[in-house]
Every structure is written in C-alpha cells, then in structure tokens.
C-alpha cells in the first residue's frame, strides 16, 4: 500500500539521502568520543531528526524541503528520515539532542503544562533527554520494575537504579518509570531534571553504537514534585506503564527503519569495496538487498497504520525483529566478502559490525518480539486471543 511514497515524502527521502552523507565522518569521530556530538549540532540531519519529534504546536520553525513543510509527529515521515539518515550514521542520530523516547512518553501521558514545560526547552537550547525504563534483569519484564517513588514531605523521592539508558548520564531531563504501589497499575512515569542532588549517572562502556551513550542511573532520594508525575490527574490505568507501552510502540518502526538504512549502507559499501564478485556472491548480496526492500515496505505500512490510529503491534514486532537481523546479516556478509582483513582495513565496517548488534535489544529484545509475532500469527489463524 505504501511502497510508493507521496510526492512530498519522496522529496524528503531524496533530501535525506543527500544530507546523510555528511554523517559518515562525525559517526567515526563519535565512535572514539561520543561526547563530540556537540561539534555537529548544526548539521541538517541533526536538526531534522529533532524536528521530527517535536509536536507542531511547540516547534520553533518547521523543517522545510523546497515547497514542502515537515512538522513533527508523523510516523511515516520519521521512518523515511531515520532510514535514510541511518545510512549515513545511526550513532549521530542517537547522540543528537532532542525529545527522543522521553518526548513520546510526555506526549502520551503529560498534561498540557507538562508538555509545554518539556517541549519548549528545545526551541531555547540544545537539550538531551532520556527514557529510563530498564533495570538490570528487568528489561523485558519491565512491568516488574523496582525503582521506588516514595511519598515525602513536599512530594516524592526516587530510589533505585536504571541500566542501559540512552544518553542518561548526559541529559538535562528525562522520564523515569518507577513504582508507587505494587502491580502494573502502581507504576508511574515522572519527569526529572538532571543533574540534581540524589541523581548519579555514569556512562557504560559498550561494544558499539557509542553515540547512544547508555548509562547506569542511580536515584538516591532525588526529589520529585507532585506535578512532575506524568498524567497525575488521570486514572492509574491511563498513566504510568501505559505510557511506556505507547512510547515503545511509536518508536519501534523508527528503530526498524534505522536498521534498514544501515543494512543498505553495508550492502552498498560491500559492493563498492568488492568490484568483482562471483555469481554466487552477487546473488547473496542481491538476496539480502531484496529482503531489505521487502522489510522497508512493511515498515512503511506499519507506520501508516500507526499514523491512522490503528497500530499493528504484531506487524511492528515482526518488522523490528526482521530489520535488526537484516542489519546484522549485512555486516556478516560484508565481512565475509571482504575477507580476513575486512575488520582491519575497513574501519567504517568495523564500527558498523559492532553498532548493529545494539538494535537487537533496543526497544525490546528480539526473542520477546518473536513471541509477539507468534501471538499475532495465532490470532490470525483464529487460535488465540
């Protein structure tokens, strides 16, 4: 249904292909020093990815490509952008300032005041944010999280440790999921500003995708104002964990799109570096490129469904899983084609070979998506709920 993009998105697509080229070099720099992102804040790609995540009513100026304006909020536009820009470098996009997943949580749950407080910052200064859900051993089982929100004299205090949180140690603000009472309905999402007393964040040393700057965050009595509890005026079933679910559902297509952009980049790289290919190797590349194209069509379909208010949970899991595995397959194939020195003579490939493995865990572990795919298949076959 969405194989053919409408004209304005075709213009956006072509524009992103252009500006993605500028991301290669910064990507290599960030692999050495992820904090060097501050040098690249004026890149159009950095501004565009941020613009895609800011609701139109809070945006300073709308990103334009020729006659077309691209206000934030559309999942399909975001998917087009993240796919093509990731062809340049995914780490730069993840290191860049912007609302990130935290913005989606604030949008899903926050009152108008909370939303303006959060989103208005982006028009004033570069602002980094985090979305803190995972705790060690409580990633897939996030509904069982243990970080506590404890009543205090003037509101609450936060206690616990979050792990693997993108940009956590470098952000100015973020959303923390925490427990006010037992059970899934006892989970709250609170907006916090950092650094602050009772907050400590440390970068974790990781294998690749260093721009994501995953961190361990320790909350040791961080004060939380009652009006920083997102959606505090809603029923417990309409806030807290629901926001985590909705946020991840909104973002998975973008992550899938990024994986596909990287997969394409790797296949292009391998073709350029291996000018002569045997028929069999040509077929291996062709097969993978075909699978990437099919997955791209599916990503766009789930994005259209999401924009239409009909999120396809099983389809999204399927495409997230497929896309992340394709990116990994592409790097394995490229290394195989380029031979024993592939990781030594091709620094970009070495970086990408490490980077793509992060996608497996971001926004839900692959195996958990496999189980969701099965549930969807069972439902379609009339055998499940």
């Amino acid at each position, binding site marked *: 249904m969405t194989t053919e993009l409408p004209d304005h998105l075709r213009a956006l697509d072509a524009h992103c292909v252009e500006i993605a080229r500028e991301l290669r070099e910064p990507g290599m720099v960030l692999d050495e020093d992820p904090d060097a992102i501050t040098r690249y804040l004026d890149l159009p790609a950095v501004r565009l990815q941020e613009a895609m995540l800011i609701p139109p009513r809070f945006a300073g100026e709308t990103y334009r490509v020729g006659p077309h304006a691209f206000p934030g909020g559309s999942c399909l536009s975001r998917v087009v952008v993240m796919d093509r820009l990731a062809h340049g470098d995914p780490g730069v996009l993840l290191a860049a300032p912007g609302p990130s997943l935290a913005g989606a949580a604030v949008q899903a749950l926050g009152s108008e005041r909370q939303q303006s407080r959060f989103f208005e910052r982006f028009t004033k200064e570069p602002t980094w944010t985090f979305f803190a859900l995972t705790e060690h051993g409580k*990633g*897939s089982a996030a509904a069982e999280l243990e970080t506590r929100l404890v009543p205090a004299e003037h509101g609450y205090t936060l206690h616990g440790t979050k*792990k693997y949180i993108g940009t956590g140690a470098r952000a100015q603000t973020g959303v923390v999921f925490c427990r006010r009472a037992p059970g899934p309905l006892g989970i709250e999402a609170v907006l916090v500003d950092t650094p602050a007393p009772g907050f400590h964040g440390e970068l*974790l040393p990781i*294998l690749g995708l260093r721009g994501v700057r995953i961190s361990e965050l320790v909350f040791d009595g961080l004060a939380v104002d009652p009006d920083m509890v997102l959606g505090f005026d809603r029923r417990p079933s309409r806030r807290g964990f629901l926001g985590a679910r909705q946020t991840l559902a909104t973002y998975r297509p973008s992550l899938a799109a990024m994986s596909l952009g990287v997969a394409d980049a790797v296949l292009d790289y391998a073709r350029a570096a291996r000018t002569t290919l045997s028929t069999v*190797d040509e077929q291996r590349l062709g097969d993978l490129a075909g699978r990437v194209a099919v997955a791209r069509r599916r990503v766009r379909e789930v994005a259209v469904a999401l924009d239409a208010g009909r999120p396809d949970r099983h389809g999204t899991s399927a495409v997230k899983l497929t896309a992340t595995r394709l990116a990994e397959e592409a790097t394995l194939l490229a290394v195989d084609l380029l031979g024993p020195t*592939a990781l030594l003579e091709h620094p970009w490939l070495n970086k990408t070979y490490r980077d793509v493995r992060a996608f497996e865990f971001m926004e839900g572990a692959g195996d958990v998506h496999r189980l969701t795919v099965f549930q969807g298949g069972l439902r379609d076959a009339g055998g499940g709920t």
Partner: protein
Amino acid sequence: MTTLEIPTTTYAARLDAAHDSVAPDTPGVVVVGPGGFAYTTPRRLAEGPSWVSAATGRRLHGGDVRPVRNRVAARYGVACVQLVDPTPGDPARARHGLLRHHLLRAHTKVLASTVELAVADLGERTSAGGPLLGRQLVQAGLADAMLLVEETEGLLDGGHDVQPAVFTRLVRGGRALLRLLGGASFLIDGPGGAVLTAEQVGTLYLAAHHDH
C-alpha cells in the same frame, strides 16, 4: 545478581599459546596474518616477538610495527598490530594448522564460559514470578549453545581437519547465545566483549579467503 564478567586474561593467554604452538622451538612467536596484521598480547610485543608469516611460513625481520587501535580487544589483554615492509627470512618450519586449531579451541572456551555465566545469570533474572531460565525459549537457546560447544570440541579433539565453516558456526552461535543475556551482552566488560575479541581475531586468522 551474577557478575557478568569473563576473566579478561584467559583468552589472551590462549592466543599466545596458539602462536607458540606453530613453532614450539622459537620463543615468542607471533603469526602474521593477511595484510601484515597480527593479534597478540602487549607483553609479547614488548618482549620483541619472532614474526612468522602465515602465508609463506617464513620468518619476518625488521619492518615497522604499527599499532592498530582496538578498544574491545585491549580490554581482554589483546593487542593488534600491522607489520609493514618486513624482510622475509628463512622458513620457520611452522605448523600453521595448529594455530587454527588452538584459536578455535580458545573461541570455544569463551563460549563455554558464556554458557556457564548465562545459566547462572538467567537463573537469577525473574519474570512473571519465575526465573528466565525456566522459559523454554531460553532453555532451547542454551541447549543450542551447549551442542555447538560439544560438537566443536569433538571436532578439535578428534583431530579432524577444521574448516573455516567451524569459525562461522562459532560466530553465529556465539551471537545467538549472547542475545540470551540481553543488554548486558552489549557491555565491553561482559561476555560480549570476550566473544567479539575472539570473533575479530578469528576473522583475521580463520575466516575463509574468497578468490577476488
């Protein structure tokens, strides 16, 4: 919670033992792979290694030793260098098949240790009131890794000719195993770092050559 760390020096020691196996009479051997690249320990580099070419079996002298930065391998006590413009010397009577054999053994041991860690860690991670280790999907994943370790050890113990396909299986099987550890497997300090080090070393010395 289990500390998801693999001893950082074990793989490096096995790597140097693999180099030694190639020419036991020569102290401090380092086999130089394609492109003049080699992985060894910083200690061996400091002691002044005896370079032996994997391609020709000859000793290599002189040449410029250029360090190749590798943060992950360095964490596991492994250094990478490129030997540029060495002078070929006499044949070293090297037995290169043994290098392959020892490196595959070292890689398999990393996976075996990761299986042990995974069993301990997933036994402690809980979901819906039970350990993740109780999930059949997790059990099946661990069983696959156990079978891979067992089969590869069987090939190595049995003196079979070990093909590049063995390395490919270790790479793919290692990645599937790491997925069971979730985000923790993406940390340099965890088993993910050790497995990636073995993958990188293996890519140089064990991967298949394609006819370009």
